[in-house]
């Protein structure tokens, strides 16, 4: 009988992940044992403290470059940079989620089981405090994302995908108002997400089959094995290509790239706005972190094969996002399409297989996350008696009613449009530069052309806010509580600082831009 060999585990390197998952478990216990009126404060503090502790561990681990838990988890530069990014953005999202001043009881429903639009439902929408389950759910999602960007084999990656997706499906359904829309969004996201996961899993199976053909090497789904098999496996390349395509579908779905983007506008619109912000910022980082690792580590040898296909996806994503953004009349849907277009720009960075390309993409992810969270923070503030006023016509003349918040939002929109001195410009440069240096001129040209189209919807919102006269239905901006203000100011300041002095974060990204294999 052979003895079971246990893999050595570097607990310090895994600490950020363990802290988040542990905090989520504690959060469930809090739900059970802490009195209802105290839960909100306890849960929010617990979640924020956990994020802070995990962030501290990431900083302490900053010099780690290792594989642990067998070869399941890679703790290297990109992992640590992206984990840090996810944690910072998640902290901002938690601030938005925890806000209870802007709307009494917070943005979440108190009892999700009450039938939507019923009398009880209306009563709970008026006054009841929102459910506090959102905190453990969010914490689980963050934990899953941390594993997702660190996963060094496809099975671990799949599990991480599920760990962060399932809580997100639930979170989408928990809006306090317009609950039917919210539930529809959650169902849509869940169904399509389940398909995408299935595609991913099928892809894993095919890749496993592909690696099995090499004589003298055991089959496996860890990235080193796949990478070796890509260069010398005698198996049919069809297995490889089919597997790669299925994996890519699963990942591109999460990244909201066309043609796998159709869920994005509905889900972004229906989900409670703080959750939308969380998804737009953190899910994007996680999804692209995984894409980068899969295509730069596992399939690096097949880059000639996947580059044209992913390039077409990138161009399509930019086009669809930009063109459809023009026709939107709802601010959340507009931001959703803008997020799709940004996924396209990020793909341009993914397709620049150099150190600069990698660091540029990581820089873009973090910079975009800050801006998009700030944008959704403003969306939570513009409201009337029925909750958020998301229809664009309602934003007319907002600049006159609330010049301060309108100025902040204008600044963020200019950042999205890529005007210099904002992070939107530096991050575009950070991905387009390396892409051009790697000879991907067509992608850069597509990126520039779609940026022109995309400028129009942003500008339309600016015109709405500043140049239109306020109508009777123009809502005022609610006075934000400390939490939303903090998140908003962090986002805006980061957008400015990363636009004016991007060097420190770029240095950090450049230093981190090396995968362990």
């Amino acid at each position, binding site marked *: 009988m052979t003895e079971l060999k246990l893999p050595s585990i570097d607990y310090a390197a895994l600490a950020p992940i363990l802290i988040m998952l542990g905090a989520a478990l504690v959060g469930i216990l809090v739900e059970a044992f802490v009195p209802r009126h105290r839960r909100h404060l306890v849960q929010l503090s617990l979640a924020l403290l956990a994020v802070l502790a995990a962030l501290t561990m990431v900083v302490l681990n900053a010099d780690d470059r290792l594989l642990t838990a067998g070869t399941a988890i890679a703790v290297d530069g990109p992992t640590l940079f992206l984990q840090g990014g996810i944690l910072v953005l998640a902290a901002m999202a938690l601030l938005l989620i925890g806000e209870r001043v802007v709307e009494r009881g917070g943005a979440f429903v108190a009892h999700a089981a009450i039938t939507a639009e019923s009398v009880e439902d209306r009563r709970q929408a008026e006054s009841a405090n929102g459910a506090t389950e959102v905190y453990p759910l969010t914490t689980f999602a963050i934990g899953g994302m941390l594993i997702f960007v660190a996963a060094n084999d496809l099975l671990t990656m799949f599990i991480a995908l599920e760990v962060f997706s399932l809580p997100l499906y639930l979170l989408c359904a928990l809006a306090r108002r317009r609950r039917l829309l919210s539930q529809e969004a959650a169902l849509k996201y869940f169904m399509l997400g389940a398909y995408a996961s299935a595609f991913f899993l099928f892809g894993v199976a095919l890749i496993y089959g592909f690696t099995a053909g090499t004589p003298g090497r055991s089959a496996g789904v860890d990235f080193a094995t796949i990478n070796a098999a890509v260069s010398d496996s005698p198996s049919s390349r069809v297995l490889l290509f089919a597997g790669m395509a299925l994996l890519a579908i699963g990942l591109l779905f999460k990244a909201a790239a066309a043609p796998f983007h159709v869920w994005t506008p509905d889900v972004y619109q229906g989900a409670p706005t703080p959750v939308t912000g969380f998804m737009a910022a953190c899910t994007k980082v996680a999804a692209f972190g995984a894409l980068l690792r899969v295509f730069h580590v596992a399939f690096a040898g097949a880059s000639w094969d996947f580059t044209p296909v992913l390039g077409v996806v990138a161009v399509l994503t930019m086009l669809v996002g930009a063109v459809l953004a023009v026709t939107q009349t709802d601010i959340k849907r507009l931001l959703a399409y803008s997020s799709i277009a940004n996924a396209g720009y990020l793909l341009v960075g993914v397709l620049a297989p150099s150190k600069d390309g990698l660091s540029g993409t990581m820089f873009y992810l973090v910079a975009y996350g800050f801006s998009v969270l700030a944008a959704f923070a403003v969306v939570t503030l513009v409201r009337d008696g029925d909750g958020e006023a998301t229809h664009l016509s309602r934003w007319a003349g907002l600049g006159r009613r609330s010049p301060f918040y309108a100025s902040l939002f204008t600044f963020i929109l*200019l950042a999205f449009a890529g*005007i*210099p*001195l904002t992070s939107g410009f530096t991050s575009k440069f950070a991905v387009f530069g390396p892409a051009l240096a790697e000879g991907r001129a067509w992608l850069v040209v597509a990126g520039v052309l779609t940026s022109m189209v995309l*400028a129009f919807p942003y500008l339309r919102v600016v015109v709405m806010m500043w140049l239109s006269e306020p109508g009777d239905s123009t809502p005022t901006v609610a006075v934000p509580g400390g939490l939303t203000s903090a998140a908003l100011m962090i986002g805006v300041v980061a957008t400015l600082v990363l636009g004016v002095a991007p060097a420190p974060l770029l240095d950090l990204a450049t230093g981190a831009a090396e995968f362990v294999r």
Partner: protein
Amino acid sequence: MSNFPFLSVLTVAPLVGALVVALLPRRRPELAKQVAFVWSLLVLVLSVLMWITFKVGGDRFQFRESYPWIPNWGVHFTFAADGIALVMLMLIAVLVPLVILASWHDAESSKRSVPIYFALLLVLECTMIGVFAAADVFLFYVFFEVMLVPMYFLIGSYGGHQRQYAAVKFFLYSLVGGLFMLAAVIGLWVVGGKTFDWQALSQVDISTGTERWLFLGFFVAFAIKAPFFPFHTWLPDAGGAAPAGAAALLVGVLDKVGTFGILRYCLPLFPDAAKWFAPWALALALIGIIYAALLAVGQNDLKRLVSYTSIAHFGFIGVGIFAFTTQAGTGAVLYMVNHGLATGLLFLVVGMLIARRGSALISDFGGAGKLVPVLAGVLFFAGLASLALPGTAPFISEFLVLIGAFTVNKPVAVIATLGIILAAAYVLWMVQRTTQGTLNPALTEVDGMRRDLNLREKVVVAPLIALIVLLGFYPKPVTDVINPAVQATMDDIGRTDPAPSVGTVQEASK
């Protein structure tokens, strides 16, 4: 004194002023105006000091400063000015205080904040100075794009009829051009070995195909900005809708960024492509001269008319640049300055006229000279300067452009000369229909038309008139500064002047 960091201080100073003005309470509009005016005068004083410090015949680029900005990409805050940039900086410094003075009551008619209007003007001054002072391509691009934002709000918030449409059109046109340039900037950065330093980039050898694409990227952006035919359609809308002061800056300075960019970036960085594209550029310039002049003749809106005349004048500047002789080049740069003065004056005077009448339509005027003789006289003078009458400054530049072009390309010079005749038509006809002839009885019922120029308005127009006459008779101080810089640009593209024209340059500049 020559070690004083003139350019960075000049760039930052208006921005600081803008912050101060913006933070003044909204209830004290007079204070905001005064602070803005004094601040712009300080900038003017500083610019004059810089002009005095500039060594004519010294290095091509002077006042060079460089501070690291984003080391990862080789981006620096590098400022340096050659003669061309120097005269443009001086033009900005002269125009802004006059525009502030001329716009004293412009912002009050709208319901918007008065201090913000003047703060935006100062922000605009900061970005305009930055764009001419930058010697780092990235920095130039940053100013080039950021410049749009204050102008957008000036037009959109404080403009007249159709201001929203005009502001959006202006912003989108410029942004489209800017994004083409961004692609070219990135391309230049890649082929240039990841540096943005102008002097390093001008030494780089680029393959022919790449060079042409990069040239096009820059050229489209500048042609939209200038604007050249067929990218000009935003200017009449923007110029027509903008408040008169902002319009004077828009046409007088902002658009010069386009022609300046061609001289500073397109020609020296991509000399072979510039020569290859020159016939096309000349053709566009010629079409612009004739086409815009014809459209100007047919305009019934004063501000749109002046905008169209500018497009025609930019055609002349384009001919001067792409003729590739020192004479024509000097003429083009001189034209940039003179056009800023003459058209700036014309816009401001037209603005005064419109403010009195409450209408920009020529058909609403008629015989206005009988009511406001001084204003009508100034309008007549501005018109004459704009059609390049001998004795006014624009004549010298137009003449230089034409003889410079004539020595190398006779058909171009001959066709361009037609533009002069058309210029006489649109200016004189406009003057006749507004200020001369029988008095339009409706005018006497408008209170404003009974007030001739007041002291403030006289102070606005007097320096411009003086400069136009002075430079019309004695352009030497300006040409002495411009000439070496243009010479160096011609050396960059490897063109030497045909033998006889060398003598004429010196004669013309004496």
